[in-house]
């Protein structure tokens, strides 16, 4: 039996320790208590509704990260009610131990409606018990609902846990923005995608961050008049706020954006070099001799934009010189889009370009099922780009 005050504790965000073997029983007891009055005629008497639309397994490598994730799940469940299983592989802990907690996240969709609650199971392992984490997780997955594995830590492609779980997961969520060494990790990611193609799909928070840049760039060419310019682009410049990592200053997103553009437009990579300005790639269109340059170069930007993109520009000199540019403005949540033709004054406007929070990015990943072939092609190209720099 859960302790007497467990319901209240759990409903107000607390957790309590349980025996792994009795997790499901404890949860059942808890919800039975919570639903007291559930058979009453009057709907409003029921204090809570438990809702689940998916299973979310989150991997973290420290207790602190587990705490962060728990806080974040509180916000997430308002949009995506789920059964969350947070698994912590904590190498700092002594001994071969596995412990478990249960907790809940509740909210009211409307002030007058019943509270909607979701449950969280937390498993923390140390020493040799870490190897049992995957096997211990599987029994808690609710059948018939999709399973997302969010890897919030390093070493995803080498992990034994991923190897053991990918058979039961539908999607693996990563954030390639966190890649410390893009030159090593993009090729690994690409191999992973290929190797797990028929079992699992990968989704990437960084890809979602780029969505707005892609949308705005695509929008220029939705206009039938401007569409024709797309086949004359010769120069691409991606500016970024440099970061300091062992793998260099170029953030992974810059490679991913370049990879997306080149793969969408069918450009073929020739070579790359470092210039005084930044990293430059030379590409060619199919059946054409004209060279295309993609330059990734650092630019000054406010501190809150560390590791973010600053601008994205496509231009050509053929006939009229034309430029299509998106640049973050003074305020970090806006961007200016600009089209200019020859000597005419450029046409500008300001659009929102919010910096998404982790929970917003995560919620978006949970809406996606199946493979995103555009992303996979962008990754393949990004892997080729970083490879050419070796």
């Amino acid at each position: 039996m859960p302790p007497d005050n467990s319901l209240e504790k759990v409903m107000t965000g607390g957790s309590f320790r349980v025996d792994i073997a009795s997790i499901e029983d404890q949860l059942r007891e808890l919800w039975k208590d919570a639903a007291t009055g559930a058979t009453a005629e009057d709907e409003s008497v029921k204090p809570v509704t438990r809702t689940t639309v998916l299973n979310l397994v989150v991997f973290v490598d420290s207790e602190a990260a587990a705490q962060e994730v728990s806080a974040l799940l509180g916000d997430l469940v308002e949009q995506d009610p789920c059964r969350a299983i947070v698994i912590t592989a904590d190498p700092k802990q002594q001994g071969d131990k596995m412990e478990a907690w249960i907790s809940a996240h509740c909210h009211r969709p409307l002030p007058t409606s019943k509270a909607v609650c979701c449950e969280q199971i937390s498993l923390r392992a140390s020493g040799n018990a870490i190897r049992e984490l995957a096997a211990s997780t599987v029994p808690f997955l609710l059948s018939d609902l999709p399973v997302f594995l969010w890897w919030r830590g390093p070493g995803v492609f080498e992990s034994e846990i991923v190897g053991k779980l990918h058979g039961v997961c539908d999607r693996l969520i990563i954030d390639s923005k966190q890649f410390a060494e893009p030159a090593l990790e993009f090729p690994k990611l690409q191999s992973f995608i290929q190797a797990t193609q028929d079992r699992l799909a990968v989704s990437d928070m960084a890809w979602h961050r780029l969505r707005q840049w892609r949308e705005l760039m695509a929008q220029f060419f939705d206009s039938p008049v401007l569409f024709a310019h797309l086949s004359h682009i010769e120069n691409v410049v991606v500016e970024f706020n440099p970061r300091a990592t062992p793998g260099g200053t170029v953030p992974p997103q810059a490679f991913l954006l370049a990879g997306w553009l080149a793969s969408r437009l069918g450009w073929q990579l020739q070579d790359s070099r470092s210039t005084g300005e930044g990293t430059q790639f030379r590409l060619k269109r199919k059946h054409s001799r004209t060279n295309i340059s993609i330059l990734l170069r650092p630019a000054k930007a406010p501190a809150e934009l560390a590791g973010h993109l600053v601008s994205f520009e496509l231009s050509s000199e053929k006939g009229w010189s034309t430029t299509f540019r998106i640049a973050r403005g003074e305020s970090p949540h806006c961007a200016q889009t600009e089209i200019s033709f020859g000597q005419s004054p450029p046409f500008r406007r300001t659009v929102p370009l919010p910096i998404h929070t982790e929970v917003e990015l995560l919620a978006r990943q949970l809406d996606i099922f199946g493979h995103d072939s555009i992303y996979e092609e962008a990754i393949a190209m990004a892997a080729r780009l970083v490879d050419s720099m070796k």
Partner: protein
Amino acid sequence: MTSVSQSEMLVNPLREGLEVVRSADPCVVVIFGASGDLTKRKLIPALFSLVEQHLIPSAFAVLGVARRPMSHEEFRATQREFIDAERLETEVWKSFESSLFYIPFDFSDASGYQKLTEELQKIDQERGTLNNRLYYLSTPPTAYSEIIKQLGAAHLVAAPGEKYWTRIIIEKPFGHDLESAHALNAGVNAVFNENQVYRIDHYLGKETVQNILVFRFANGIFEPLWNRRYVDHVQITVAETLGVEHRGSYYDGAGAARDMVQNHILQVLSLVAMEPPISLEADTIRDEKSKVLRAIRRIPPQDAFKYSVRAQYGRGFITGETAAAYREEEDVNPQSKTETYAAFKFYIDNWRWAGVPFYVRSGKRLAKRVSEVAIQFKTVPHLLFEQTAADQLEPNVLVLKIQPDEGITLRFGAKLPGQSIHIRWVNMDFRYGASFGVKTPEAYERLIHDCLIGDATLFSRRDTVEQAWNLLMPFLIAWQQSKERELPQYEAGSQGPSEAEALLSAEGRKWRRI
């Protein structure tokens, strides 16, 4: 086809994989009636929200037209009222605001359309809006015909085969009766092709109405039951607690049947009753809806009272306060015979629905605000279990709730735990809000965006508008002719008039509690 944008034919490789398969074409939205309430309350906020979602191209402008003189700046200032202060502060609003323009003229003044032409040409040059136009008629309905005629005369409508497009959105009410709707349609179609015309029914822009389509056609288990073999009857309810508010003068000339049933309710009914469309294209869905309306049995005026009830609210008590009677409301004729409640019994004479009554009702000042569709299934042919006072044989009911708490409920019988068999009727509940906490878009946002990309699915087509009027006319005529009869009354805050119960009780059925 003038209504198909050219960008539909070009495949933009950078769009592949993005959620929005197409953003709007460069264009100018011309709002007639731009100094009015709807423009600042709904249209400009919807357009701004579309800009924030990157759904509006950079080559874009809004040109407002109305009678009162105002400068561009003054017009911009009036449009800030319904935008939150925080969003007004942003560079994004400033940039959007600079694309709002205004010119004043009286809709009947031909020289005004000359000014309009010049202004549009100027905007095209400065902003690259490529001659594409969306006209939005947000004016009193009496002005529709005049504006349309003048637009035609001023050659402001793209002819078929042009490289640019013209579309027109017409606000409800679309006609006052069959004859006026027919005349208006004839006027519209003299100038615009039907595929350029978007008759707005903001109810169809609501997420939950679209959910009906998904619920029916994405689930394999309900469709086999969705017919006369299993369904006993269907009830569609749109109940409001509000009275006429500040719309007394409009409402008194319309009434519940015109305001709600002719458009919203019959649209919902046709979505519930239609056959599966062969695709999700605008016209295939609209064809199926039209077939339903055509199949609804026409009732001769002499039988109208057997198939309908209308009533008016008297004084009452609602949400803890006394409420005035309809005839005491502002701008309402104290002798008014306008109905504030209307209920109908319809039969759809086709293979799927023969003999299944569709009861629909709508009223103001009722006990609760509810919009829902309830499918009541037939009871089991024989109850195996002992019947006691506690074990009434009840039917299964599937309720699609549209407002206020969108969701789906299925009622079924379950055994009460214990030695003997006692049946208890329980609800299995699904709430969109609990499972998907995402904010649903405003109906106007969805509809304006659909029109900007040339998707007419959620707009009413000429034939369905006229069919709906045709269906209601015998009732409206009978009600009108029975003027000598006192209109039934119901207390504000109640379940509606007792007469409405009789519409169902004769067949042993009853309305669901509101």
